[in-house]
């Protein structure tokens, strides 16, 4: 009896591992292929199909890192993503706090409109945006792009934060108020430190959302030196012929940043999701 139960558990474990390995294979195989492709010469790509390159070719990497503009595009993506992140937090934290904690007319409506704003697809907004950016003389400008990114990072981040602030016991803050703290002090001293993990997650989300954004980047940035990496990739896909080697190299380079960010902050991401999605 005991034996059979134990062997059953081992069997379950083995099956679980097999299933997980299958999923991991499905998840990662495209990346393997992407990386391997970046080490193949253009001619080999068109002529040979094998799981391992006949010979390693570093030309695409040299080209990506030196001449093709990829380093500048990465730098630009950083600028846009960091600006978006900072602005989203600056806007989202007070907003999220107010919606979750404060009594004011229109609170529900505001909460509802955050969710509604999700629905507006970005491809519907690019022409009106372009007109606005032109008026503000902000086309071909990284900060102009960052502002458009706020249209999707702010609702999402605020909403995540609303959920999180709700989980922080109100009593803690009230206790501080009783002790003679001003409201602002109470928020700064008590609530914000408790919300720090959620703020980090939210920041991370807005960074990645901005880093990965595509349509606005390709429309609002035109000058080759001011492209972000996603727009740059599209620029590399010349219409008549895909330089797969170079494209995959640039793809690897631009994927490194978000992947690395998630690896270092996984624990927080999960906690953030718990509060954001579960109890929001």
């Amino acid at each position, binding site marked *: 009896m005991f034996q059979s139960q134990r062997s059953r558990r081992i069997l379950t474990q083995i099956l679980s591992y097999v299933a997980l390995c299958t999923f991991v294979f499905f998840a990662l195989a495209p990346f393997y292929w992407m990386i391997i492709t970046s080490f193949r010469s253009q001619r080999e790509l068109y002529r040979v199909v094998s799981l391992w390159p006949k010979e390693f070719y570093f030309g695409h990497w040299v080209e990506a890192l030196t001449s093709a503009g990829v380093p500048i595009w990465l730098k630009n993506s950083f600028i846009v993503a960091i600006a978006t992140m900072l*602005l989203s937090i600056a806007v989202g934290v007070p907003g999220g706090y107010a919606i979750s904690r404060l009594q004011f007319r229109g609170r529900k409506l505001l909460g509802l409109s955050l969710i509604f704003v999700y629905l507006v697809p970005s491809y519907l907004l690019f*022409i009106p945006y*372009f007109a606005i950016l032109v008026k503000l003389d902000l*086309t071909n400008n990284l900060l102009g792009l960052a502002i458009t990114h706020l249209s999707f990072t702010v609702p999402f981040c605020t909403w995540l934060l609303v959920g999180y602030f709700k989980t922080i016991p109100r009593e803690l803050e009230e206790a501080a108020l009783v002790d003679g703290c001003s409201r602002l002090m109470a928020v700064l001293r008590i609530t914000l430190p408790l919300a720090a993990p959620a703020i980090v997650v939210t920041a991370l989300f807005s960074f990645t959302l901005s880093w990965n954004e595509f349509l606005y980047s390709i429309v609002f940035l035109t000058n080759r030196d001011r492209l972000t990496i996603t727009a740059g990739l599209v620029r590399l896909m010349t219409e008549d*012929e895909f330089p797969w080697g170079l494209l995959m190299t640039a793809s690897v380079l631009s994927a490194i940043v978000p992947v690395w960010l998630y690896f270092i902050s996984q624990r927080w991401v999960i906690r953030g999701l718990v509060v954001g999605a579960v109890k929001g």
Partner: protein
Amino acid sequence: MSKETSRISRREFLKIAGTAATVSVVSPGLLSACAPKAEEKKKLTVFGLTTWSGVVDDMLGAMLTAWGQGAGVEVEWSVFQWVQLEQELAAGLQAKAPPDIALLMENNLHYYRAAGNLLEVTDVVDDLSAEGGGLMEAARAILEHDNKVWGVPFWNNPWPLYARKDILEPAGLSVPTTWDELLSASLAVQNPPDLYGYGMSLGANDDTPYNFAPLFWSLGGAFLSEDGKTSMLDSQATVDALSLVKKWWDAEIVPPGTFGWDAGGNNKIYLSGQAVFISNPPSVYASARANDPELADNTLLAPMIGETAVDGWSWAVFKDSPNVDLAKRCLREWMRPAAIETLIEQGAYRCPPYKGLYEEEYWKAGGVVGQFREYLENGRYLAYPAPPSPAAGEMIKAMVVPNMVSALLVEGKTAKEAAAAGHAQLQAILDKYK
């Protein structure tokens, strides 16, 4: 980023930081009124199309920058692919801020001309023609409307037949000159799925009408009536051409992947050595020359069976540009015939628009470019026999030909039904532009 840029972005940043949130609410018009407009160095924005050769794109940009330095003008040079350029122009025109200069294909040139967005450039073209020994008739025809010239010529793309010498010769075959020969040669040498006969583009992309047109023209068909107002697709020629495509499809000389191709699909299949024949502009040849010389050596370019298609690229000046005179001066000094010749000789493989250029040694030497002049002189634009028009441009973009082909081969309609559906779609487009 240059010093200049970082200075601007810091200023912009302060501007944004200061008004952080209000910026977005207040009506943009109000803001533009308050925004400081410093009088700076004059600036020209130029949008190009990719020539599919990095070297040529870079050279073109370098020439422009050099001109700007000489003239004391700041130039912004951006290269796009077709769809992207359209998107940029759509957004830019909507915001009343188009670029100063953009490179357009013939039908799009006339789209923007008809919409009243362009500036006449007759004087510039007259000067340049004189310098280049005259403009080829075929190149001029697509730039004019009401005896005015609307684009400064860049070059023309011929669509010849590519053939693999190293495959045909051992089989004792020569380059086919009829459709029957194309079929029989394909069947004789092909070995699917490793090697297909004719890498014909049938998917939803811009190459498909250019691959279909020669077939259809040779059977007496045309897309448009002479005045460009009526669809001619409801003809026997359309039905016959579609039937021939079906015959090739059933004989499996066309790769089954063709439905998934973008405009680069036939390029790829040829460059990977998996097709004996394709029809495409010489960009594929240029790419083979650069990346796979062995394939280039084994490639023959010949006039397309039936008729050879051509398209034409030219530079347009947008009327709303604050510096129209500067833009015209830029084109006059940057797009000189000698500059075009240099670009072509650097490996662009296109047809120059000026007669005088064909006197250069490069063209006299024969070889793969030996017939380029004839391609242009005898070639047909897609709108043939009508002049280029906005509607013809939309015919390409609205996928009229791919839709007919997929009705036939995917939906299982008859050739007659497919032709009728194509006719209806084209006529609807034409009616919209009346």
